[in-house]
């Protein structure tokens, strides 16, 4: 079946991004929008917009039946879930499968296999992909025993969690019982799954992930890695490719491990395998797989020239995997900053509101993915991402310089933004040297008073 019309079950910049590719492919778009997004930029770009419910995600973007009904009612052949919301919820993929709507993503089974940390971990072990030493624990007593084996410092993680939610760092073993009890109770409340597991904490690690594409039949290619170590409380803020300073041996080991993992699942579509690279030893460990398009996919697109959304659609359409993409050269360097409506002066508190004025950067090698224009609303119901500013250049130094200019020339008023944070981070000698670990942002914020960070805007 050829996809002629796609229902986009998402909002914000990614909805606009998906529509752009659909237009290029001459595929019609229907945007499923909440009441708060009826007049958004993506609603203006889509061929049609249907209102699926009130602003609160639980009553609109997270309603599986409503989304599939919207696809059926608008005669859409396929659903693109974007990222977040229902993108990694097996029930949506399953309901699509039973109603002959193409889900642009992996199978329901694959979503379940990677969504459960314990299953993903055993899949990694089975694919001969290294995992961080650790174990699931059923009780506090078991946690104490395991904790002694693994040694402090260690992390207590929720089995059903993700993106850093429900994670606790335990510096001393005597704090472990309390942390396990708390993490278990929180995980039960947040994810409906109280299971936790313990894991060795890598004191200085880099977050490096590998973009893969799979045909669903066991054939997998990779499109290189991205370094996403610039994170605040596990939320990524700056991403780049290639990952600076990796030896070629380590780089290709990461790529091969990611492909082994995805191939073992016979993974279908675009996905990302995340690793923690120990900066001291150069060892790497599987973290998780994200079964969707990633926020930071544009940096990969910049250096490979591949339109990842177009490849997702092609694979969903049964066109298979274009293996030749793997052999394309990688051209230059790309770095992305996520511009969020949050206030660095107030502990990065979200700052919803109406954008008064905005002027996004442009020019050679600059790409801005956004849904924000003057008068746009940043509703309080959703995440605060307003734009991704991506610079692409021949090497890291020139790319970094171009990105700094782009950040410096961006004008935005009406809502607070983290532009000043980005200016400070990009100017920092440690970031300029490249290869920072995931503790970089915390150090940056501790070293400078928040006013100083804000002053760089």
């Amino acid at each position, binding site marked *: 079946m050829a996809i002629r019309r796609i229902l986009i079950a998402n909002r914000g910049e990614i909805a606009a991004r998906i529509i752009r590719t659909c237009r290029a492919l001459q595929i019609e778009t229907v*945007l499923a929008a909440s*009441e*708060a997004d*009826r*007049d958004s930029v993506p*609603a*203006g*770009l*889509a*061929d*049609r*917009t*249907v*209102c*699926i*419910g*009130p*602003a609160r995600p639980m009553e*609109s973007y997270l309603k599986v*039946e*409503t989304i*599939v*009904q*919207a696809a059926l*009612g*608008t005669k859409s052949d396929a659903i693109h879930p974007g990222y977040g919301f229902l993108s990694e919820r097996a029930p949506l993929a399953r*309901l699509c499968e039973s109603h002959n709507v193409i889900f642009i993503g992996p199978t329901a089974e694959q979503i379940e296999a990677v969504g459960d940390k314990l299953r993903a971990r055993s899949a990694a072990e089975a694919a001969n992909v290294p995992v961080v030493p650790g174990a699931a624990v059923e009780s506090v007593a078991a946690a104490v025993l395991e904790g002694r084996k693994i040694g402090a410092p260690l992390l207590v993680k929720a089995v059903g969690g993700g993106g850093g939610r429900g994670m606790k760092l335990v510096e001393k073993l005597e704090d472990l019982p309390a942390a396990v009890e708390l993490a278990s109770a929180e995980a039960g409340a947040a994810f409906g799954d109280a299971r936790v597991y313990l894991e060795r904490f890598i004191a200085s690690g880099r977050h490096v992930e590998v973009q893969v594409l799979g045909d669903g039949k066991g054939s997998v290619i990779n499109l290189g890695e991205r370094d996403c170590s610039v994170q605040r409380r596990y939320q990524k803020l700056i991403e780049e490719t290639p990952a600076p300073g990796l030896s070629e041996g380590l780089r290709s080991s990461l790529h091969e491990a990611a492909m082994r993992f995805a191939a073992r699942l016979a993974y279908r579509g675009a996905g990302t395998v995340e690793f923690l690279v120990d900066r001291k030893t150069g060892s790497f460990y599987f973290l998780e797989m994200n079964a969707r398009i990633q926020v930071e996919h544009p940096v990969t697109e910049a250096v490979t020239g591949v339109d990842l959304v177009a490849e997702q659609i092609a694979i969903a359409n049964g066109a298979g995997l274009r293996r030749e993409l793997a052999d394309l050269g990688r051209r230059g360097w790309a770095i992305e900053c996520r511009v969020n409506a949050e206030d660095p002066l107030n502990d990065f508190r979200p700052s919803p509101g*109406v954008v008064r004025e905005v002027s996004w950067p442009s020019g050679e090698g600059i790409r801005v993915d956004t849904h924000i224009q*003057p*008068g746009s609303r940043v509703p309080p119901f959703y995440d605060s991402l307003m734009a991704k500013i991506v610079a692409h250049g021949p090497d890291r130094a020139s790319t970094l310089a171009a990105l700094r200019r782009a950040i410096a020339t961006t004008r935005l008023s009406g809502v607070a933004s983290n532009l000043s944070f980005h200016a400070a981070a990009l100017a920092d000698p440690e970031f300029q040297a490249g290869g920072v670990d995931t503790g970089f942002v915390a150090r940056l914020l501790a070293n400078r008073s928040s006013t100083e960070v804000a002053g760089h805007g």
Partner: protein
Amino acid sequence: MSLTAADVAEIMKILEGSAFDEVTLEIDGLKLSMRRGASGGDGAAAASAPARVEARRPTGAPASAAAPMAASASPALASTSLASAPAPTAKSAAASDPHVQDVTSPLLGTCYRAPKPGAPPFVEVGTPVEQDTVVAIVEVMKLMNTVRAGVKGTVTEILMRDGALVEYGEALLRVKKAG
């Protein structure tokens, strides 16, 4: 998105009937502020709409969401009749008669005018309705949701098409309120 003259008239009416003295709305670059005249005027309206407010609608989308935006932007409006119709369509926005109320769909789905194919419709033009009179069914993935009138009066217009997709907040029919 832009406010129509009828929308502005409606907002003025609401302001007049409310306990508030002024209202300021900002919708997609259009700024509307209204104030009751301190010297006993009926209310002065000043609207400034730059040219780019003439934003196009996406094909096939309902032509108005100004009212729900207004409802969430202003406490003065939230307590008025506008709030009861969360997402009026163009048709309902045109209904400025305070004695007429639209019955809107509580969810997106396929709407049916009758309990089963071939059965007589729940209501026709001229049918008297009570608050709890069932007027339609909206189906979402085989789950049938009954829609009740929510108002006492007489049906004056059927806006839905049997078996068609209705959006959340889309007007299904129009009722002239009793009394």
